[in-house]
């Protein structure tokens, strides 16, 4: 059993986290055959590139350092709405040209950035870029388009509130960070979105869409020089300039730590969320290990709630990395009549992990599971390019994807247990219950 329950060990771990010192030596061997290259376009935009010849596709990530945290006060939803306007084709001809390329586009807005994801057959990459670069560099802030997108955002908000896990996440982030910044929905709130005018969005665009604020990531079977010259040719009209202003991360210790909602469902949702320290490579590794040991894979700590106690089908834990402060969420879903028992066992597992920590074998297994999960999540090139850009923007480094394996393996039992003791302390958790109110109709069995 761990001996890292002493205040001294916790202090050492805290110092490691704050100063970014590393523990045991990291093994730097990359799991990918081709390295990630850090390049710069002529206009100063950063480009992360990785060659991958396993399919004839090109994935492009356009990361805008202008997520929820950059939204001006009272303007929650402006980051998503602005970025969405940048993907609206200026005319029918452009829209049809894009359809012909069959190159999917998508957008997501997070705490620290928004990401535009473009995928195409490599032979169609230039045509896709040509079409896309026009609205990106000169979006149309028309009232008709804005009103239409506001309606769409209201639909996305409704969906976010409908699914228990996403509703619980929204409630926890709002409790930790307030109604704006990290705590806001990417799709804003009814009032804030209604109040957004075209001039607000235009101003936001002007402040965010600048060369120093953009990071590109590409994974392709095409060569780096080829990709760089295409990007330089098509993205030459982006205004130069520095980073947009970031609001400070305001973290509050919520007064109300037990949140309760009701839903007319057969199952109840039980969740807990923990605020983690500001992000560093070390914190990322520790949080990924915590996620793994709590709820990833067979024989995780929550697994017994399903396997032995038969209290749940769905158990999970997730680490949400923000630059200013990460969050770890854990949850399960159980039938309504088992709610009290399941909650007691769920909280007892969390308490035990925080109080008693883990032993070396459990930590080693958690690291292996975390690594397999990490590799699986990064198999497809669009997901990998997404993470390459996100890790760089979060300050973890452009090569973090290549270093994670060594980092996970380098965490010691003492360091892990000090982290668990400090950051998974049940007194710091926000507990969410979405209590189901429906009953299973009795069935006759033999």
């Amino acid at each position, binding site marked *: 059993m761990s001996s890292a329950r002493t205040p001294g060990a916790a202090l050492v771990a805290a110092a490691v986290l704050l100063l970014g010192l590393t523990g045991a030596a990291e093994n730097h061997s990359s*799991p*990918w055959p081709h390295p990630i290259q850090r390049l710069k376009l002529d206009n100063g935009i950063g480009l992360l590139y990785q060659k991958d*010849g*396993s*399919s*004839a*596709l090109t994935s492009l990530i356009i990361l805008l350092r202008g997520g929820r945290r950059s939204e001006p006060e009272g303007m929650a939803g402006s980051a998503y709405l602005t970025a969405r306007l940048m993907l609206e084709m200026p005319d029918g001809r452009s*829209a*049809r040209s*894009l*359809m*012909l*390329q*069959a*190159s*999917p*586009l998508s957008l997501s807005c997070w705490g620290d950035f928004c990401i535009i994801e473009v*995928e195409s*057959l490599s*032979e169609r990459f230039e045509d896709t870029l040509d079409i896309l670069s026009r609205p990106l560099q000169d979006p149309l802030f028309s009232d008709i388009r804005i009103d239409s997108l506001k*309606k769409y955002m209201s*639909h996305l908000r*409704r*969906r976010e*509130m*409908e699914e228990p896990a996403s509703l619980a996440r929204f409630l926890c982030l709002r409790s930790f960070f307030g109604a704006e910044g990290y705590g806001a929905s990417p799709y804003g709130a009814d009032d804030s979105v209604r109040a957004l005018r075209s001039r607000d969005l235009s101003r936001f665009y002007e402040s965010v869409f600048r060369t120093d604020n953009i990071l590109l990531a590409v994974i392709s*079977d*095409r060569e780096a020089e080829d990709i760089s010259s295409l990007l330089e040719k098509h993205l030459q009209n982006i205004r130069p300039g520095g980073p947009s202003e970031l609001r400070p991360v305001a973290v509050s210790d919520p007064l109300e730590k037990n949140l309760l909602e009701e*839903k*007319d*469902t*057969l*199952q109840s949702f039980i969740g807990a969320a923990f605020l983690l320290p500001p992000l560093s490579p070390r914190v990322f590794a520790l949080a990924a290990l915590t996620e793994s040991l709590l709820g990833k*894979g*067979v*024989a995780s700590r929550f697994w017994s709630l*399903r*396997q032995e106690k*038969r*209290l*749940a*089908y*769905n158990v999970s834990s997730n680490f949400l990395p923000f630059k200013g402060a990460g969050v770890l969420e854990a949850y399960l879903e159980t*039938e309504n009549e088992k709610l009290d028992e399941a909650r007691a066992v769920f909280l007892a597992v969390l308490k035990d992990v925080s109080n008693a920590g883990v032993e070396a*074998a459990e930590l080693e*297994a958690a*690291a*292996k*599971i975390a*690594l397999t*999960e990490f590799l*699986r999540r*990064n*198999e*497809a090139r669009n997901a990998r390019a997404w993470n390459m850009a996100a890790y760089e923007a979060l300050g973890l480094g452009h090569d973090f994807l290549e270093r994670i394996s060594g980092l996970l393996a380098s965490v010691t039992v003492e360091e892990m247990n000090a982290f668990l003791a400090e950051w998974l302390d049940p007194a710091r958790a926000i507990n969410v219950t979405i209590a189901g109110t429906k009953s*299973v109709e009795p*069935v*006759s*069995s*033999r």
Partner: protein
Amino acid sequence: MRGTETSPSDFFTLENGLKVFLLENRNLPLVHAVVGVKAGSRNETVETSGLTHILEHVILFRGSRTRTADEINRDIRRHGGHFNAHTGQDFSLFEMTLPGGDADFALRNLADIVFDLRIDREGLDAERAVILEELSGTEDDPLRSALAAVYRNLFDGHAYSLPIAGTREGVLRITAEQLENYYRTFYTPSNAALAVVGDFKLAAMKGRIRAIFGSLPPSEAPPQVFDPPPRLRRDQEITLEMDISQPLCLLGFSAPDCNHPDRFAVELLAEILGRGVNPLLGSALRSERRLVESVSMLYYAHELAGALIVILRLDPKQGKAGGRRALSVLRSSRRLNFSPDDVYGMERGNVFDYLQSAKNQIRFSSEKSREKGMSLAVLLVRQMLLSRGESSGGFLNEMDKIKSFDLRRAAAKYFSSGKAVAVYVVPSNPERRR
């Protein structure tokens, strides 16, 4: 195809009848292995609904003849393994992903867990309780509830209408003896297929497969002969009330099975109408009033029949108008121009080439399917278990042969002449808004 690395592969059948496909892919240090067994919910009746799914759970989580569930789970965790399973209408899948160096462990475990099962009453009861939890989760989920309702009605009178996860009655009724008989009947090498994709050397992997799976005793599974589902005789409309704020509509149509020659045209039709960058159905439903918030279309091609499912997120203020309008657009889709070839002279410039766009989209999806080892392994197993290999060329070559005429013919056959099931999921309490 530019710049694409080739992947060595091999297909063979072991003496005990197990079909094997190996695909070397050294891009990541992972090995993905999938065993598929040709037994699914189609092998059930109303009385035994859920049998295959319970068996999947027992195999996955309740141990083999030589090891307890706890031992297996801890072993898999110690090796960093990802382990999962799925039940379908036609077959069941058991998947394992491990770091490349642990390929031997992955294969030995799959062979042990899938082909050397121990079934006991205690394990069955434990999984029964977990499955009842799973059923509640499914019933709470608007999309999955609606999909189950579409299948229940589209394939009424056929085993495809049964819920894959089973009914509560079925799950409570099934005995360990039934499970044992079912397992002994269908879980044999000759009724199964194995695909391994990932970081290994082909020749060495072939030797491992022969050593681990070649020793499984041969046993003939009975021939599986089924009637196809009867035709739907009339349109159906079903309304489910749930605690939601965003109404949902699913439209279900009969579609060709996975070996039917029409499947290529239907795949392209689904791409044009309900998928891709700007699907035609979405444009039609948003052009006058904003009747829907999103549109998507799925084509499930099973061995005995297929289903085309349209998923519409409706505008809460427009009631069922979006679903009814979508039905009307689909009914008349046989008259649409899908390509400039459909018109003459000056008109050609006004017709967008939906057909070429869809072919490009399918080429994109085909390339994309090569990126994830597990998805690729699942596709290979599906192909080995279900394909009758009747098409002359590869999938993309067959797609390329499709003309606009074929699309209109398919639209007429499956949308205009066929009956539809419409399932609406509406808010049980429309006043409640967050």
